[in-house]
């Protein structure tokens, strides 16, 4: 009886009993589960960490058990706990972690980062993926060095083809990625593209709420589709195709195509109009017209757009000045960067594009016939304590979405 206390505001004359905070919850079950669990450090040898952000940290690891072989793995550790006085508490798992876990468990495709397992241990979530030595951002950086020239055509085309294969698979499964950018496109040692980071991905079939209301900030601004910049309430798969267009341009020119400056949210928590980003797009693609994009004036931010001075279309000149000469490649680029999301090419269609049918054909290994040897992914060896994982580094990460993915500040 000591687990109850008298409830002081009982109504019906009788004292009401209320569970005290130490009331029985899952004690016996927890003991049984904790004893059966194999720790992440029993299965994996942690070699160091690859990246850190507000979401947590990604470690590079080597398998220790027979089933895992001697293979390399990337372990994403979510920050899920809150700490005060060095005691960690459960606070509830963020919706983005739930999405990423549940989608990764369902989806399996050659061009999607492969999930090996998820380990829940000591109030933390560890998602174990196959390790990919490279990513497109790293490859772009490598080629931007003065003596390294352009990315070979076959590498570029093969990478594009595989991105579209992975994306087409996601879209057939009614999953939007929503955060495609070079840093999220991994490439393994054998030159296979793996789309990674489904942290912002979500299903778009039959959503209970309009997709807009869930979380207001998606997609790194440089890769954000014009309909989103104009305040679209409903996302469609077309937003991912726009990002793929931006990636194609970046692989060609080795610079982000639309490198706008993000307008920060003001105190009123209103989503601001990203004027600078829109101007960057207009400068290259020209000002969109109602003739070419009939629903243009129905977007909430249309009044803002109509105040910006008009620009002519410049894509062809941009393409040529960046050394592009293949007409079909330019056509695909223009179809991906089509303003009207209803007219923008979809993933399945783009796989049939003429550019992919002409020589050089896309290869299974994007590095086939390439003279370049890309450096290995850098790892930080100063922290291989995956279980402890000091909290300091979480906040200094470069993936600065700021307050948006810190669950405690969202409330």
């Amino acid at each position, binding site marked *: *009886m000591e*687990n*109850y206390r008298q*409830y002081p505001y009982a109504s019906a004359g009788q004292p*009401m*009993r*209320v*569970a*005290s*905070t*130490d*009331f*029985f*919850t*899952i*004690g*016996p*079950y*927890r003991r*049984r*589960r904790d004893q059966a*669990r194999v720790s992440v450090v029993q299965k994996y040898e942690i070699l160091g960490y690859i990246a850190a952000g507000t979401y947590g940290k990604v470690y590079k690891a080597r398998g220790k058990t027979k089933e895992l072989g001697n293979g390399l793995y990337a372990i994403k550790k979510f920050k899920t706990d809150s700490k005060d006085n060095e005691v960690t*508490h*459960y*606070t*509830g*798992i963020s*919706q983005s972690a*739930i999405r990423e*876990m*549940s*989608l990764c*468990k*369902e*989806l*399996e495709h050659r061009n999607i980062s492969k999930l090996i397992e*998820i380990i*829940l241990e000591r*109030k933390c979530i560890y998602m174990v993926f196959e390790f990919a030595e490279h990513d497109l951002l790293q490859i772009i950086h490598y080629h931007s060095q003065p003596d390294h020239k352009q990315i070979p055509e076959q590498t570029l085309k093969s990478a594009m083809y595989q991105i579209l294969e992975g994306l087409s698979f996601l879209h*057939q*499964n*009614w*999953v939007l990625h929503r955060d495609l950018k070079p840093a999220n496109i991994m490439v393994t040692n054998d030159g296979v593209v793996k789309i990674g980071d489904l942290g912002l991905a*979500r*299903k778009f*079939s*039959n*959503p*209970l*709420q309009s997709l807009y209301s*869930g979380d207001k900030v998606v997609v790194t601004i440089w890769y954000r589709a014009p309909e989103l910049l104009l305040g679209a309430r409903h996302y469609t798969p077309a937003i991912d195709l726009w990002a793929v267009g931006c990636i194609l341009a970046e692989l060609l020119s080795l610079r982000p195509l639309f490198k706008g400056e993000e307008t920060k949210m003001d105190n009123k928590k209103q989503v601001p109009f990203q004027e600078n980003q829109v101007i960057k797009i207009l400068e290259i693609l020209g000002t969109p017209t109602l003739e070419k994009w009939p629903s243009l004036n129905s977007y909430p931010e249309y009044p803002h757009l109509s105040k910006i001075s008009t620009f002519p279309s410049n894509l062809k000149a941009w393409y040529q000045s960046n050394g592009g000469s293949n007409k079909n490649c330019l056509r695909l680029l223009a179809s991906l960067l089509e303003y009207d999301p209803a007219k923008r090419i979809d993933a399945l269609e783009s796989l049939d594009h003429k550019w992919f049918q002409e020589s050089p054909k896309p290869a299974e290994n994007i590095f086939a016939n390439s003279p370049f040897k890309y450096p290995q992914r850098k790892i930080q060896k100063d922290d291989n304590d995956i279980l402890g994982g000091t909290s300091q580094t979480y906040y200094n990460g470069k993936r600065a979405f700021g307050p948006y993915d810190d669950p405690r500040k969202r*409330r």
Partner: protein
Amino acid sequence: MSANYWTSSQRNKWQFSRQELRDARSSVIKLEVQLYGNESTMKYDINMRIYLHQLIIKLGRKLNLRQIILSTAEVYLTRFFVKVSIREINIYLLVTTCIYLACKMEESPQHIRTILSEARNCWPEFIPNDLTKLAEFEFYLIEELDCYMVVHHPYNSILEVVNVLRDGDMASRLEVSPEELQTCWSIMNDSYITDLHLLFPPHIIATGTLYLTLVLGADVRKSINNIPKTQNQRIEAFVNFLAASNIDLDEVIETIQELLTLYDAWNSYDEMYIKNGLHQMLLNMNK
């Protein structure tokens, strides 16, 4: 996959044969005996499952949640009890946790404080005022589900079947009325009490539900004791449709039997008995 039942984790990881389910349940009972000896009064039987179903509905109504969220929550609950004994955990907190997780999965997140406080309004004697307990349970629930959280329901399947019936040829053409569809809907909601979602694909459950509705009419639960003997034309059309389809008829028949068993048991369901038994059990756990 997430859009396709046939390649989903529901089919590949969380679907059982009757025998597999029996084996899993007897392991749980063995575990119970190990933990607490033989004297068990509370069983995870159909009465207990009706009670759990009512708990989910109660909290769901308080939170104003859509039915599909509650159905997803109930699938989590049913999967959990394939591997865990009702005597190892506080079922009121488990129900709360299943709903908390299902809200996030179905893209209608509710704040953990909101869920906890509504759960405490429903069951003040059993829900501790400590959100870390709920958050902790979420961890263990997800682990027990092996992180497979995408659930496929029969609600969409029935609409497909109804469309096929409407556009069918002469012999199998059938117009399903909105009232009948509503009845199907509520039988489907009840089907989560049973093992059907661990045994069969969603379209089988949808088909069985529609058959029951056509035979028994709107008030299924009242009319199960006097099933009409004569087959009318509409049922004939439906049978023709079934015969021409690739739907597994044995599974449909099993579904119908399972649902009839459920409604039969519901007629003699004694809520107070379960409630008092559970209360006694939870009090003992606190000693």
